[in-house]
């Protein structure tokens, strides 16, 4: 079986063709870098995505966050629920862990809270 993918690793968006035998990846063509081949294999076996969102802090401030690694694609909505239920306390700095151990990743802040810079 053949599967055509658009690589999402970088803005080049290469068209990749993966040849599959059931769940076994036989060949990957069309990628222009190693990371593309890696992506294509994962996409056919265990697709993953980085989730980026925002969290409302206890003081009402909105801070942007991300999962520090990609999580299984079918867990994105569950991950969003956890993020939306969190109410972290400020001050928060970039990289601070907001939620730990979320589907094999940590949810970390990608923005400083307002108090941080002043």
């Amino acid at each position, binding site marked *: 079986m053949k599967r055509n993918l658009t690589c999402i690793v970088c803005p080049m968006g290469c068209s990749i063709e993966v040849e599959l035998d059931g769940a076994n990846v036989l060949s990957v063509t069309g990628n222009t870098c190693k990371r593309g081949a890696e992506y294509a294999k994962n996409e056919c076996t265990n697709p993953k*995505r980085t*989730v980026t*969102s925002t969290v409302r802090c206890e003081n009402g401030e909105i801070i942007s966050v991300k999962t520090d690694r990609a999580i299984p694609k079918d867990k994105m909505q569950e991950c969003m629920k956890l993020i939306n239920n969190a109410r972290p306390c400020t001050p928060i700095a970039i990289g601070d862990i907001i939620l730990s151990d979320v589907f094999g990743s940590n949810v970390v802040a990608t923005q400083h809270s307002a108090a941080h810079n002043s």
Partner: protein
Amino acid sequence: MTDLVIIGGGPAGMSAAVAAYESGIRDILILERDENLGGILQQCIHNGFGLHKFGEELTGPEYAWRYEKKVRELGIPFKLNTMVLDITEDRVITATSSEEGVFQIQAKAIILAMGCRERSKGALNIAGTRPAGIYSAGTAQKYVNRKGYMPGKNVVILGSGDIGLIMARRMTLEGASVKAVCELMPYSGGLARNIEQCLHDFNIPLKLSTTVVEIHGKDRVTGVTIAAVDERRRPIPETREYIPCDTLLLSVGLIPENELSKSAGISLDRITGGAEVDQDRQTSVEGIFACGNVLHVHDLVDYVSEEAEIAGRSAAEYIKGAKPGDESVRITTDGKVRYTVPQRVTADKAVNVYFRVADVYKNVTIQVYRDGEPVYAKKKARVAPGEMETLRIGEDIIKGAKELKLGLEVSGQ
């Protein structure tokens, strides 16, 4: 008198400031109208920034912080909540803030880094009522990502530029139902990766060659009518389809924000909507430079930073006494190449030319002509209007040239 005033504290302004500082200029001032540095990146919370510049995947706020941190560490002064009202040809800046009132600064050099704004619904002439629930995609992005408000629950998006695609995913993740993304053109203006991870991941239909022909609703949007368009982009009546929704997002293009450039008498490029510049990003007015989305709309912030560094270094040289060259060679285009930046070169040195094409072309040869003669060719499998291209033109080609032209030879479409 201030050596260098930079208008705008987004990625372009900050990167230009750092580059000018590193070129030896200390008397720098950044003027920013928002309450933070970082510009539009603050609301671009998705990832994918910085692969080119830093070799890693950052979110917008993280990318902005890399530069803000440098600005702070170097002690480069900036004024927030400060709106520039006017600049003159003689580089007098009039600005205002609630703290200082109206004030003027005489600058030795100015870098324009005001960014761009979204094309509004007024520019679209869609029939129907004007209820609440119509937002530009960037406004919706600000509501969701900065303020924590959801603009609606059932959404149709017109325009498949990157902001539209990103917002389709964002609204879906926050619980909205995105009914469709409609695109007037037969191809998307967004990056392929965004169609994949923002639409396909969530089974959101992308309707190409389709537009919104009517908006329904009295107080709030109740639905839109969409229709397919023919090859001349006219709606086909038989294809009209009603989609119930409470929100319409418009992602229909960005326009460089050049009101200040006009007041300084800077000549603008009709196609980019930004200033015409030379290889140093110096505009037609001596001592005034431009970079980032105010010059031409970029798809990748990495290229904005790169361009701003050129402007920052050049402004530093100008302050130290360098004069723009008086001989200028224009770079013209063949129409398939829509525009180039820079539009002219004034020095005999190699230059990276950024350009965009007019349509999606396959198997193309990018040709450089020098005084009418083809002198350089580069093959490419695919080019598209949504993806900015670059080409390096060597010093040997530029030296002694009277006219340079960039064109495409197409063997497939």
